[in-house]
């Protein structure tokens, strides 16, 4: 079982369609026999990556190595890889048997044959009818569909079609089996059953599985290794336990399971402050560094008020079957707890968090920083937008004359048009508006993560895909088109060293 040879390796794979980048610098190596899951929200590039491994899409740059050989430009029919498609893609004009035998009928194997002169020659021949028959029977047995050979695929249920699709792929004995959200179209109960069956099949067949899903629970249940992808980039690679317990950033923490995410600051050796309280923790970061803190809802222990580090009022308690989901208001923060104990809404409770329940991560975003250019009207262009700003801050003691020229403290007259500057904007200084043209730039909300007392939202512009990170108090819908408003006095400009002296 403990084979550690690499079967497939992706090196700096990039893929872009027209102007949009789908996959960026994707580097990953997968071991023989592993069950690897690509996990991410829809549109994150996981399916594109899978399609590149299958050969339906050719990478824009980078390499895909299969057993050390570059296969990135090989057509799909030349790769020892088979795919189970999202919507099964069974051939409607063929019955179950013919669907499964499709690949076998095309396969040629090198066998020794005796030619007319009696010499033995090695020749590529098609599989015999009996060989095909045996193989089809065997996989039908594996997927539990004995006796379905003559059935038309359109008469099968979703789950049965799914099994035929899997049988059709594994009958060719591929080195890697690719599964593109294969359980997406099944109902919950069927999905759970198929998860276990797939896992069992993986164990029996011993081939490498690459599985694509957006369902984090599915990924945690089935995989040996999870690759969390967002925005075409790998966020984290690790075992399900690693990914759940030690998420590297807030995206992973938010995407995998429920979590409370707070802004925190290191206040001492192994001490972190968030929610206005200091906690002992296990992660070592520099003192005074701003960090993101993740606490899983099940890691918060309810105790009597006064005991524990936090105290708050229960806002709501929802029964979820195994546990209660309790929302507690602590000052201006909202904390979600999962507990088997009931808490009366409106009551005061204490909360305790053990050091191993606190996960600290370096902040990915600390500020918005852009390259900008001053325009004729003394506004600044950056991040696909144009904003009003105070240009006098570039030269201390300066002011503007009536014609809009900048007069420096020493009385010099400057035309700033075309001046390149660095622009910095704080998270809390940007506000969103759904009124078109209300702000200087427009974009779509691509992420919205709750951080205890506010949402951290990322807005991306359409033209050059510039990101604006902002903190806002209200929940917006991901995908909404918004206009970004930044007050002129909140835009911090600094001259770029070289272009600064332009007149």
């Amino acid at each position, binding site marked *: 079982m403990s084979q550690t040879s690499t079967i497939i390796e992706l090196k700096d794979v990039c893929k872009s369609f027209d102007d949009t980048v789908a996959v960026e610098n994707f580097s990953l190596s997968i071991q023989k026999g592993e069950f690897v899951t690509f996990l991410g929200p829809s549109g994150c590039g996981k399916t594109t990556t899978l399609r590149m491994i*299958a*050969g*339906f899409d050719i990478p824009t740059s980078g390499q895909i190595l299969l057993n050390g050989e570059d296969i990135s430009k090989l*057509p*799909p*029919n030349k790769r020892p*890889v*088979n*795919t189970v*498609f*999202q*919507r099964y*893609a*069974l*051939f*409607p*004009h*063929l*019955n179950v048997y013919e669907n499964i035998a*499709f*690949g076998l009928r*095309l*396969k040629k194997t090198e066998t020794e044959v005796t030619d007319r002169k009696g010499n033995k020659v090695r020749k590529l021949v098609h599989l015999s009818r009996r060989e095909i028959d045996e193989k089809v029977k065997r996989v039908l047995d594996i997927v539990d569909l004995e006796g379905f050979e003559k059935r*038309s695929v359109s008469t099968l249920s979703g789950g049965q079609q799914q099994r035929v699709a899997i049988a*059709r*792929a594994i009958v*060719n004995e591929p080195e890697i089996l690719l599964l593109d959200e294969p359980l997406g179209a099944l109902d919950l109960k069927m999905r759970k059953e198929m998860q276990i069956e797939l896992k069992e099949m993986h164990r029996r067949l011993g081939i490498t599985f690459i599985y694509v899903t957006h369902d984090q629970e599915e990924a945690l249940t089935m995989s040996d290794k999870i690759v969390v992808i967002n925005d075409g980039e790998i966020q984290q690679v690790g075992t399900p336990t690693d990914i759940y317990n030690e998420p590297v950033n807030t995206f992973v923490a938010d995407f995998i399971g429920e979590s409370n995410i707070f802004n925190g600051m290191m206040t001492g050796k192994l001490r972190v402050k968030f929610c206005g309280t200091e906690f002992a923790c296990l992660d070592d970061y520099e003192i005074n560094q701003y960090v993101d803190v993740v606490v899983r809802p099940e890691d918060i222990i309810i105790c009597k008020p006064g005991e524990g580090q936090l105290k708050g009022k229960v806002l709501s308690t929802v029964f979820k079957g195994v546990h209660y989901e309790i929302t507690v208001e602590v000052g201006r923060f909202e904390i979600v707890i999962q507990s088997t104990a009931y808490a009366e809404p409106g009551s005061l409770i204490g909360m305790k968090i053990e050091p191993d329940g606190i996960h600290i991560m370096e902040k990915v975003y600390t500020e918005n920083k852009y390259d900008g250019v001053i325009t004729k009207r003394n506004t600044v262009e950056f991040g696909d937008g144009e904003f009003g700003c105070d240009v006098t801050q570039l030269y201390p003691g300066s002011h503007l004359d009536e014609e809009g020229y900048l007069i420096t403290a020493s009385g010099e007259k400057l035309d700033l048009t075309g001046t390149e500057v660095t622009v910095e904007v704080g998270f809390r200084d940007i506000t969103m508006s759904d009124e078109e043209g209300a702000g200087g730039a427009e974009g779509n909300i691509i992420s919205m993560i709750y951080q205890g007392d506010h949402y951290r939202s990322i807005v991306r512009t359409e033209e050059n895909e510039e990101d604006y990170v902002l903190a806002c108090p209200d929940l917006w819908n991901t995908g909404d088109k918004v206009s970004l408003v930044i007050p002129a006095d909140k835009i911090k400009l600094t001259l770029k060293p070289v272009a600064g002296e332009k007149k």
Partner: protein
Amino acid sequence: MTGALKLRFNRKQLCIPYVAFLVLFVICPLLVVVYYAFTSGTGSITIENFVNFFTNTNTLGTLLYSIAISVVTTAVCLVIAYPVAYVLARSRLKKKYVLLMLFVLPMWINFTLRITALKEILSSIEGNLSAYPFLNTVTGMTYDFLPFMILPLYTSLSKLDKSLTEAAEDLGANGFTVFMRVILPLSVPGIISGVTMVLLPSMTNYVVLDMLYNSTYIMGSLIGSYFAAYDWHGGSMISLILLIIIFVITLATNRFSDDETSGRAML
């Protein structure tokens, strides 16, 4: 007075105009045709007309000639239309609807004008049109019926799920095998309806022959000639035979297009 204003019909009563129409214009004429087909000039019942059709070399020759023209026309249309429909359906061109419309556009121009234009072109190439009657007729019919072949093929090819061809490639099929094993069998319903729409009218459309100076009779002109000579009995019998041929063809093709899985058996 309120009773008179209350106009309420049930479903059966609403059918009456249609039934009347069908009886008057479909069933009655059909019965008249059958009556004339099986009676002689004196009004006595006979199968003489039926025997005549199959013993007369002229009428049989016309039947075979009609079949030859329609089969060749259909084959030529299919050969031209399939690649066009395939390319249009599979391309990611933004302007493909414009291209498709250009192929269908001739249908909007008057039939006589189209064939007259074709006649001028052909005579400038061939000189004497009557030298190649069969070729000219097939050319005219192909030009006339091509859109009827392209449209159903385009519809069935564009409905074809791209993941099916990907699945075939994934299972080891090269481009040719994908076409033969997946695309062609799945486009059979389109082929069938295209064939039906070209084969049947091209058996009887004698206007094209007339305009292109092809003096040979086909089924349509044959029937016309019988009625022109006041032989209603013989003409009716030929109409009836043609009707049965068309009925059989339609029946056969319907079976294939309804049951998509048997498309492979037909190939």
